[in-house]
């Protein structure tokens, strides 16, 4: 209860600080508009991010070979797909673990046969961490090929059966093998346009530049709350209000909890305002599942509040918090993809970006915007961000309680 009082007081103070309001609300909106517009040509090219696919194939059927040769290894796929053949499912999983590949495809024995017979055929797709878009791309490729083969197979069977009945009725001689071959070829021609891959860039319900930078700016500017939270603590100490709080019948745990909650609520509030304004003013589509976005924002704000405790504990003054926190936010922002998309980073930086909470938040928001996120795939970023928040808060609170 006392923690809530302190948190509400902090929100009230923050709301009255016009300079802060401009920095925390207006700046990210303006930057989103500028970056989203300026980099539209670069990011909105319609191409899917290049996917490194690990393939483990145990099926020798012609249809399966056709999928590999004419789709996965096709010329058209060269710019968006790199194929790595693996010798076992275990090797494929290892490659995913060490991030040698973005997604994995396992074609089980009998897959081709099932397709031709019009039976359900399932290839197994593995998704690398944070590679939802790439996995969806492979899923779409596989589904499209599966549908095409099953359509040809089904229509051929239907046509041959009908022709056989009619030939029998009219007494005309009929060679089923030859007819099946002819119908099948014609059907393949009619639907087998290789360009279907280009026209419907699979898995690439890729986000627009405006969407990307809305997520990027949200992730970056929410981080500033870690500095503000730390500064607010130093401000209370400098003006003796902290001492006064400690003279009231309030435990130090409740006071620190209040400061934590205050930062958490303010960050969340900032996100909500930002999301609503960018949606209505900049027409940013935050994805079809708003609840997923809100859950991620809630947990990311929690991580930011935890970091504010670290800033408070490891700096000695508002000025120090500003300076050190400012540098930290800049580094996190660059490394976490808020300036340049993470997909453009070399592999080492991509791996390194995973230490930043904003990278997890940004990737999560973008995946939700792209419509490729399931609740299950949200579990990892949610756990990582909650972990960062908890660890940071624990370290900060421990140090602050030792100090006071």
């Amino acid at each position: 209860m006392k923690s809530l009082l302190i948190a509400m007081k902090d929100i009230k103070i923050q709301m009255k600080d016009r300079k802060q309001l401009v920095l925390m609300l207006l700046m990210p909106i303006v930057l989103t508009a500028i970056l989203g517009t300026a980099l539209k040509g670069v990011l909105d090219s319609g191409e899917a991010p290049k996917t490194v696919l690990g393939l483990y194939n145990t099926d020798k059927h012609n249809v399966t070979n056709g999928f590999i040769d004419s789709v996965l290894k096709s010329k058209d796929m060269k710019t968006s797909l790199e194929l790595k053949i693996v010798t076992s499912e275990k090797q494929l999983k290892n490659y995913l673990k060490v991030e040698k590949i973005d997604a994995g495809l396992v074609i089980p024995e009998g897959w081709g046969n099932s397709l031709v017979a019009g039976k359900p055929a399932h290839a197994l797709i593995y998704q690398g961490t944070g590679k939802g878009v790439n996995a969806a791309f492979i899923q779409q490729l596989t589904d499209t090929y599966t549908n095409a083969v099953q359509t040809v197979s089904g229509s051929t069977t239907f046509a041959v059966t009908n022709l056989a009945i009619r030939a029998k009725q009219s007494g005309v001689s009929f060679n089923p093998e030859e007819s099946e071959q002819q119908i099948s070829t014609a059907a393949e021609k009619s639907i087998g346009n290789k360009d279907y891959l280009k026209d419907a860039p699979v898995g690439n319900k890729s986000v627009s530049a405006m969407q990307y930078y809305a997520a990027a700016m949200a992730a970056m500017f929410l981080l500033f709350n870690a500095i503000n939270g730390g500064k607010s603590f130093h401000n209370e100490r400098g003006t003796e209000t902290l001492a006064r709080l400690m003279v009231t019948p309030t435990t130090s745990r409740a006071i620190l909890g209040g400061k934590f909650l205050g930062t958490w609520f303010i960050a969340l509030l900032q996100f909500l305002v930002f999301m609503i304004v960018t949606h209505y003013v900049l027409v940013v589509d935050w994805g079809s599942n708003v609840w997923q976005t809100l859950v991620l924002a809630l947990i990311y704000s929690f991580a930011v509040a935890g970091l504010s405790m670290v800033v408070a504990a490891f700096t000695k003054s508002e000025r120090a918090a500003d300076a050190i926190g400012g540098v930290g936010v800049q580094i996190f922002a660059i490394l976490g993809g808020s300036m340049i998309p993470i997909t453009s980073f070399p592999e080492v930086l991509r791996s390194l970006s995973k230490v930043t909470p904003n990278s997890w938040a940004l990737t999560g928001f973008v995946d939700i915007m792209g419509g490729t996120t399931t609740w299950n795939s949200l579990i990892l970023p949610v756990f990582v961000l909650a972990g960062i928040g908890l660890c940071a808060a624990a370290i900060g609170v421990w140090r602050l309680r030792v100090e006071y």
Partner: protein
Amino acid sequence: MLKVENIKKSYQLHEVVKGVSLEIAQGEAFGLLGPNGAGKSTMISMICGLVPYDSGEIQVAGLSVKKQPMDVKRKIGLVPQDIALYPTMSALDNLVFWGKMYGLKGQDAKSRAVEVLKMVGLVDRGNEPIQTFSGGMKRRINIGAALMHGPELLIMDEPTVGIDPQSRNHILETVKTLNEAGMTIIYTSHYMEEVEYLCDRIAIIDHGEVIASGTTQELGAGLAGGTVLRMEVDQYTADFLKQVELLNGVEQVTAESNKQLNILLKEDKETMTEIVHLSVEHNIKIHEFKREEANLESLFLKLTGRTLRD
């Protein structure tokens, strides 16, 4: 109301409070005097439960500060030396917030805040942010925040520093009224006249020890007939100082600076003439030569070797 028994506190190897004992009765107004760094603030912090003491015991209304800190905190109102308020929030919001931190709920907190605003004479400014207030008005709200929960013991740490005479008078009158209504007060100040006006008893602390305590009359009795001579010269010499100290009528010489001397006299008329002669002999120009009757300030000077504002 307050019982302090042989309290000790050290920071690393430096002992800042060396076995202080005090007893303050319910409804009493008690003055705590001491030069800067004497240990007053540490004492106050220990009484409020902000700083733990190494040994001894402090009890407020029979409750141990160490064993029942939350119960003790409910009985105390602290007016800190600095303005411990939120400047962008209104006076009313500040008071309501501090009231709630002491357990007051919604409407009760609001009504009490209005009551307190009346008490400190700022009811018409309640909705204005603290940052628009004058220094004196801020100090009055600073006191108001400590009164929100109706404490039994009000501790005021130099509540009138740097304010206009009107606000100062208002504060003194408010404190007097609260004390007359039965509230126990501990008051520290650099202004001796405030302490003399408000307090029944006084303790002087220096170097972490109580060096004198009693009523103003009891303490004044030790200085009966004494006089303080304040001299401002262009620059005195060590030899001059030594010779002044050797004069029969001089009890103590304190140098405030290399130009300012405070001389406590046992007997004044002849001694003053001797001091003037010594100044002429040592070729020291006198810019100011002021004789004052002994009072609590001179007692403080005598006991600590420093003035209250040091």
